[in-house]
């Protein structure tokens, strides 16, 4: 299936939505929906992004998202449950 849902924790700072949406735009990744909301930590926001891969690899989308300094963690939501992203991409966070 080419539609995946990512739950992304980001620094709650001005411009962070532009950083994420700009990344999707310039790399031609297709966002189906994007929701941003607060978390219990006022310094951290949560983005839930539905990405329609259309030929891009999920691994590459996650790796590029992960390069953003403002992105703290990324998890994939499958049937409402969190699934840690595949560790084929050893990431900056762990």
């Amino acid at each position, binding site marked *: 299936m080419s539609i995946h849902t990512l739950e992304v924790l980001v620094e709650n700072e001005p*411009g962070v939505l532009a950083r994420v949406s*700009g990344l999707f735009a310039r790399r031609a990744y297709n966002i189906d929906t994007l929701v941003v909301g607060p978390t219990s930590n006022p310094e951290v926001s949560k983005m839930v992004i539905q990405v329609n891969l259309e030929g891009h*690899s999920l691994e590459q989308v996650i*790796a590029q998202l*992960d390069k*953003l*300094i403002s992105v*703290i963690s990324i998890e994939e939501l499958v049937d409402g449950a969190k699934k840690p992203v595949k560790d084929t*991409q050893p990431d900056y966070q762990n």
Partner: protein
Amino acid sequence: MATQHVPTANGTAMNGATSLVKSLEAANVDVMFGLPGGAILPAYDPIFDSTIRHILVRHEQGAGHAATGYAQVTGRAGVCIATSGPGATNLVTPLMDAGMDSVPLVAITGQVPSAAIGTDAFQEADIRGITMPFTKHNFLVTKAEDIPRAVAEAFHIATSGRPGPVLVDIAKDALQAQTTFNWPSKIELAGYNPKIVPDNQAIADAATLIAQSKKPVFYVGGGVIKANASKELAQLVEILGAPVVTTLMARGAFPDSHPLHLGMPGMHGSVAAVTALQKADLLITLGARFDDRVTGKLSTFAVNAKVIHADIDPAEINKNKFADVPVIGDLRETITALIPALKAALSKSQPDLTPWNNSMLKLKTSYPVGYTLPDDGSLSPQAVIERIGQISGTDTIFTSGVGQHQMWASQFISYEHPRTWLNSGGAGTMGYGLPAAMGAKVGSPDSTVWAIDGDGCFQMTNQELVTCALNNIPIKVAIINNESLGMVRQWQTLFYEGRYSNTSLESKRVPNFPMLAEAMGCVGLSCERPEDLDATIEKAMSINDQPVVVDFRVHRDAMVWPMVAAGTSNDEIMIARATAPDWDSQEL
């Protein structure tokens, strides 16, 4: 987390501008390139008293490329500083350039006062938004107390992991407000923790794969230079005894004089280097990123090769080419770990690489990069560049612009040491060469620095010769003057039936380059005849107290060969117009 040295000024009351300068001093900045204006003006007052050498450029683009040249030569962060609006947007090209070539760069820009942001104020530009796509990170600082932390984080991000440009945009009122200087003792970024040490399993898998391979090739990229891993690479190559190719960004990472060095791969790579990648059964990829200029048509690139891809940036893995064994980490750490692992693996099984090496070395001998002299006896651009390299020697630092002269400088100068070849590889920024040479000379004042420039490139950024002349930065500039936008003209010759639309610059008539150089406080020389070539280069070499510009008036129709035309397969490499290598005579 990185710990930081805490300067003595900590806890002292000062304004934001002074705290910016104290922060730059705390980050061990010794030189910065910049040009003041309204929004950044508060910072220029404490700069006046600082230990940091500020070099006043003539255009902010020059500041950016000079900072890049400085960074490429020293391995430290280069620093440039500009005002808001057009000052900041003039840094856009150098920032993009540094992003493409992974250069540690910190750019400081003034911004309009925070209350005016978003009002289309005088000299207002959203430089944070503009530079978001190609900076590694950027900051907009609107409070004086946030300046030291932003600067500390900027230097940490720019120089760690995969290096890159970071911009710190500071509102004028933050520079003017009173604050207490507080340089952070540690930096913790929840979303940033580059992996330095590679996984043991990845190293073991890589070693095993190498020891099974019969046709391996080291595909060496600029990451080896960034990681200061040339010595370790040389050891690794000795252990395996396999051929090496160095990309445009990696020239000097491995000595050109080494018998196993096949040269540069890619669009204008040597037949041996291009073919080695195409025919290999294993690419040992070290800090390279499978750029389209190297791979040619990707679906036909190295189709029989397994791939080990060692890089510090996880996002490069599987981006263009699938990696059978990814190795994430700092390249010096990676190669250092790979050396004993490979020795152990080779002690169990060691395939005979002799047939493979011999066929590659035969290609290297049969098809060396070369050129023919012009029939009319005029000056050959390749000969000019080759002789500059030979006369100036391998300790010289070379920079270049972008185009034919850049390719010839990568082909016909022999590079023996890392950080002696600086060019704009990913971005292809015409005009990079001269200001980058200025920064390189500042970073390495005892080295001879030659900018190999084109007549087109030179006319984009030559204003920095004034900066060089006034600040005792005696660079040498070779204008390879073919009175054309030569590479574009070459494509017009090959792909547009010789219809030379807007590529004739007429730079043998106007401008008069030696007079232009003299007007800017430099020595201007000219050379038109092959018999004067050596004497002219030696004359330029003898002048060390002033910048020197030499107008080498060369033949117009010389072309860069070999060539893999854009979008075609590396298998279709041409050694001259409509001339492929004689594959039948080669055993591959």
